[in-house]
């Protein structure tokens, strides 16, 4: 799967200046419905040319981690927590993640007076922007956060030491999802989060299947955010954000790996055992931050959540 979750979010930040209407019908790429074959070939999109994958640096040969992505995000480690640095759009997006999780859980979201109850698994945690914030919530019992980049986890652990309130509620593990042991049903997680990670993963379908095993049966949620693969998102994330504005580090995005919301819907429908997904499209407005825009999930950044039913 992917390297470090956090860095990537930075990238997406830019994309939303465009109106959603102009974009919708114009996607230049045909996306096949998710191929379920466990072929080593790439991703959800068959039109995507595959790039050579270098798995040699990471121990698990079956890993979803892409070595190029890994080294890219590791190089961003030092600026992870700089609120005005390259990860700024990620910091700005973080409150929306909590809003989306509240939206998904709805009335089953615990009240603060009921004490700490929720357990989170944050996959691709990067420097810990989401993991720390989740651990700080009074409704959270514990957060397990994993990332394949030890370099970035060092940053995360160091940063965590600056907040005594996190001790005992948050732990970082240098693992990929493939090397993390699947717990027994009663120890599975209420919320498995995957923020700005999916677009950096080599084999998203296998990756998501693996993730599903960590979601608590009968009510746990798999919550993610990623970018749709549209011509607008190509222009915004790769050209505008990285080349022109430079708000996102160069090389952060591989547009070919972006996943569209319909592809995710299809996947979870065909897998069975999942609720109807909840979707929330968001748009980055320079100077204002992120805004929820209905329908924009078809254009650019979006949140996607499904509840495990069985």
């Amino acid at each position, binding site marked *: 799967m992917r390297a470090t979750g956090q860095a990537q979010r930075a990238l997406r930040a830019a994309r939303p200046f465009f109106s959603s209407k102009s974009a919708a019908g114009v996607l230049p790429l045909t996306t096949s419905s998710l191929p379920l074959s466990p072929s080593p070939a790439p991703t959800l999109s068959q039109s995507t040319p595959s790039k050579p994958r270098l798995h040699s640096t990471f121990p698990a040969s079956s890993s979803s981690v892409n070595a190029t992505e890994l080294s890219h995000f590791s190089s961003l480690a030092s600026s992870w927590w700089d*609120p005005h640095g390259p990860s700024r759009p990620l*910091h700005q997006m*973080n*409150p929306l993640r*909590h*809003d989306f999780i509240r939206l998904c859980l709805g009335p089953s979201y615990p009240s*603060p*007076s009921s*004490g*700490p109850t929720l357990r989170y698994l944050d996959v691709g945690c990067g420097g810990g922007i989401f993991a*720390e*914030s*989740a*651990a*700080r*919530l*009074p409704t*959270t019992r514990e957060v397990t956060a994993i990332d394949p980049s030890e370099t970035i986890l060092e940053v995360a652990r*160091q940063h965590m*030491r*600056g*907040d*005594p*309130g*996190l*001790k*005992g*509620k948050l732990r970082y593990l240098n693992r990929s999802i493939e090397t993390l042991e699947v717990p027994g049903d009663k120890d599975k997680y209420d919320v498995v989060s995957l923020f700005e990670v999916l677009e950096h993963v080599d084999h998203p379908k296998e990756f998501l299947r693996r993730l599903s095993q960590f979601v608590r049966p009968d009510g746990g949620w798999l919550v993610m955010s990623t970018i749709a693969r549209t011509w607008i998102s190509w222009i915004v994330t790769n050209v505008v954000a990285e080349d022109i504005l430079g708000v996102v580090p160069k090389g952060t995005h591989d547009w070919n790996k972006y996943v569209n919301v319909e592809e995710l819907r299809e996947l979870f429908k065909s897998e069975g055992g999942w609720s109807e997904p909840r979707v929330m499209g968001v748009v980055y407005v320079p100077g204002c931050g992120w805004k929820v825009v209905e329908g924009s999930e078809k254009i650019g950044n979006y949140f996607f959540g499904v509840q495990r039913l069985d």
Partner: protein
Amino acid sequence: MDKLLRRRGTYVCRSCIQSFQRQPRRGYATAAPSQPDIFDVVCVGGGPAGLSANPVTAHLRMALVEAQDLSKLRAWKLPPDRYSNRCSSLTPASASFLDRIGAWKHIDRDRVQPYHEMQVWDGVSGARIEFDSPPTNGGTIAYMIENLNLISGLLKRLDELGGVAMYDSSRVEHITYGEETEEVDLRQWPVVHLSSGAQLAARLLVGADGANSPVRTFAGIQARGWDYDRHGVVATLQLSESTPNTFKTAYQRFLPTGPVALLPLPGPYASLVWSTTPQNAAHLKSLSSEDFVAMVNAAFRLSPVDLAYLHTIPSNHVDELTWRSQHTPFPSPPTIPYPVTAVQPQTVASFPLRLRHADSYTAHRIALLGDAAHTVHPLAGQGLNQGQGDVQALAGTVAEAVQHGMDLGVIGALQDYNGKRFMGRDGGLWSR
């Protein structure tokens, strides 16, 4: 809302709380503890702004530091015919905020006087503006309230809520950054060292510590502005007669040396704020009670030339006023105030007027409130109200941060407060 939030528990982890609980909160007279106590919010300053900030964030682990003995302020009481000389004008917006945080009901309302009209005129030309308030506010422009009445009410509200660690009769000796230990890295946390020896580490250090804010100095935030070369002379006055408490008027006359204002208190009482030169202020304070009263009456009636002369004589102001009034045309009350008949003992005081504005209201783990952020001329009665506005905005920012698991002391969490209160403030602040 604050009740809801209060139940949320705290940001501080259990082991920290336990270590906190093991240590006595006070009584560090001899040996300073090596480890600071850890709080989500430490508020330095128990004035109106600082005290208001505490109830709205009471769901967090809070500490309040105040140099004065709070038990004296709690027990504050004056007979019904005596009023403190330090009063503020509270807008309906501020009053409704105090109501929302549950403090309004603890304020002695018999000592609070709403006013419904303002008479403002120029001392040279006589040009006049009259203000009233739409009936939607019950016709109230603002409420005159003694600062001590407000503080006492806020303290009672804090006592009712509980949960705030009070460090009163405590001076801030100095503020440093914390240290790194094996357990935790507090190198970016401000630690307040108190005269009692206590050390308080703050996730967010709130500076509600006045115009010469030590917190602001620690944060390296500069406050710019100027001295007006004017002093504000205050006093509690008694008038010959008064309109009913249900319809009161505030008066302000602009003199070449500065505005003089008479603000209504309940019954025949009123509060004076006279901004004038430091020499005139010293002169006023040197007068006998009778002459002082005559000077106040003269300030609302005589010409600036006559007043300038009266400021040069050491006594005999009563006779001078009587004689000059016969030769000076001026309107009758209630267009101008009813004659002042007495000044309450020990209420004549003065303080220098200045304008200061902090370059920013926030820094990493720092937020400034009230006079620590902005010190203004009293002529528009905005000082305390701006502080209440700060408190409302900061409380909203903190609640938003808590809701989303943000570390409420970091700039990313505080920028909303700075944006709401600092930006756009300058236009209204820089009046001379």
